[in-house]
């Protein structure tokens, strides 16, 4: 008797596929023998586009990478650019960035668990978790004026300080989120129907996880506690207290449990940040910089005490003619930082500064160099490798998307399972097409 196999297409537009991706399944009966994954349906040429735009104009494109946790992408891109330029953001700015990242991470995990549960039939859980996410989206809306297209981080800091009453709002919604998550957990974790679909399905071994370069909750579910925040601390993560939840079997259930535990850790991180956050500037202070003329006047008036602490903004009316006289400014370049919006709309100098930064060939220039910086994204290590040749735009931007590596391992995860398991396993991958296809 010869065995017959046949092919089944799932996607690119399939109700159980988040985003556009095509799986070509080779089936024998209902068992999957082989899978081919076709990606690229949402390719928007992010990397090419980032090369053609000025440094600050490229930041909004990073929102569209992982559109479920856009704040983490903003921060990752800015950190890589700051690494080349040798900038360090003021402490308050670093805490604000951590708060933004962790709120985003919670939203990312809530979406993943909710969508996954819905596809497995638990529609109530989806509604509960979307309600929790909605609370966070309103908070993000308060923070940066948009729910998804956040564009919050800037090279040298963040767009604006936390809005008034932000911490109180967070403290008010945190118990609600915890309650909704606890309710969902009570509905799912011991639910026989849910467990039958996820337990022992889509198992990833430790060795395969490492061989495929998988990071994030997916790798942690196999028991390897690798977290960029712990292995390569950035911002202020080394001062904060958080645990790294790990699984043991590497199946869909473990991935669900790891994500659930990470929600709690992220909420704790935000609470710690509100307690530890110092007062002070949130961005590098472009508005502290005065024109050289002002210094002359200050000196003539005898006000010399403050001079060593001030940075001079050199005359740029002759297209940077004066700047070679002050090469020390190049690293801590004031022009890298956009002036705060209060200044832009509040004074004529602020408005002029804003124009100077956005005018063609007048804006931020990052010194020639290369840097790779990784942050812990919702799905794992999100890295940006940026090359600058010293002009006003990046020479090359490479984004290391965490879910590309998981998608590359998907055929291995699906092999030997049933067609119905595709939905459970693929849901736990948390594939974000914007990040996968860039």
């Amino acid at each position: 008797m010869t065995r017959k196999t046949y092919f089944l297409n799932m996607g690119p537009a399939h109700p159980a596929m988040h985003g556009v991706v095509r799986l070509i399944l080779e089936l024998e009966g209902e068992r999957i023998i082989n899978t081919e994954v076709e990606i690229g349906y949402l390719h928007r040429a992010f990397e090419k586009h980032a090369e053609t735009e000025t440094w600050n104009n490229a930041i909004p494109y990073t929102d569209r990478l992982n559109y479920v946790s856009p704040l983490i992408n903003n921060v990752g891109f800015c950190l890589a650019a700051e690494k080349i330029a040798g900038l360090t953001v003021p402490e308050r700015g670093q805490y604000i960035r951590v708060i933004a990242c962790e709120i985003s991470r919670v939203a990312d995990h809530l979406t993943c668990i909710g969508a996954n549960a819905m596809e497995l039939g638990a529609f109530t859980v989806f509604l509960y978790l979307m309600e929790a996410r909605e609370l966070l989206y309103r908070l993000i809306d308060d923070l940066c004026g948009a729910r998804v297209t956040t564009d919050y981080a800037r090279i040298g800091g963040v767009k604006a300080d936390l809005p008034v009453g932000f911490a109180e709002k967070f403290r008010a919604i945190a118990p609600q989120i915890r309650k909704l998550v606890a309710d969902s957990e009570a509905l799912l974790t011991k639910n026989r129907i849910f467990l039958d679909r996820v337990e022992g399905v889509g198992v990833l071994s430790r060795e395969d996880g490492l061989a495929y370069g998988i990071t994030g909750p997916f790798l942690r579910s196999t028991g390897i506690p690798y977290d960029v925040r712990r292995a390569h601390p950035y911002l202020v993560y080394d001062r904060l207290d958080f645990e790294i939840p790990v699984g043991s079997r590497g199946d869909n259930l473990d991935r669900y449990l790891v994500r659930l535990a990470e929600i709690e850790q992220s909420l704790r991180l935000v609470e710690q940040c509100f307690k530890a956050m110092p007062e002070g500037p949130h961005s590098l202070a472009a508005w502290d910089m005065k024109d050289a003329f002002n210094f002359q006047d200050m000196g003539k008036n005898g006000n010399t005490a403050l001079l060593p602490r001030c940075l001079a903004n050199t005359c740029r009316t002759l297209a940077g003619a004066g700047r070679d006289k002050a090469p020390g400014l190049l690293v801590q370049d004031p022009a890298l930082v956009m002036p705060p919006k209060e200044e832009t709309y509040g004074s004529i100098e602020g408005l002029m500064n804003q124009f100077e930064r956005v005018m063609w060939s007048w804006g931020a220039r990052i010194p020639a160099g290369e840097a790779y910086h990784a942050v812990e994204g919702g799905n794992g290590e999100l890295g940006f490798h940026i090359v600058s040749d010293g002009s006003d735009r990046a020479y090359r931007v490479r984004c290391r998307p965490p879910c590309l590596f998981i998608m590359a391992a998907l055929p291995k995860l699906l092999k030997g399972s049933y067609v119905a398991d595709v939905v459970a396993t693929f849901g736990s991958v948390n594939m974000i097409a914007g990040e996968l296809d860039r």
Partner: protein
Amino acid sequence: MISETRTVACAQALDTLSRLKAEGYNLLVDLTALDYSVYGKRPASMGWEQNFPSGAPAPRPERFELVYRLASLDPVTGLEAKPRVEVRVSCGEGSSLLSVMSLWPNADWLEREVWDMFGIKFADRPGIKRLLLYEEFVGHPLRKDYPVNKRQPLIGPKSGELAGSPSFNIARQEIPFE
């Protein structure tokens, strides 16, 4: 993030990488390519090179550089015992590179992406497929000589009219500021 950089000639790339794998670099974090063909040669408008007293960055001898980013991850502690290694393989148009799929299976997709975006061939992968773009796509878009506004056969009008999106900064790139 501490990282060492090692520059390797094209022919020794696979040897070096397999030695590193044997030394415990078990994670291929990333593989990408860089096109240095116009590095330090971009037209200077409004004299920006005056901002850099040391001059514009030096151009590279070969056109492309492949970057293999390796990490040695301890599965128990989840920390990296050794600093990361960035292996840079410089190669030109006709260099014959070998695939590292046998060392790290995720190199499969990453090499497909490098071929797709830069047109760098791997000698032992003759039938390599594009990863993100479709097979009918002409050219390799992340090469520096690929115009941003180019139209492709399956996308856009049949007349081949150029893309006019204001977001592409095409006017900025081509017309020097006077």
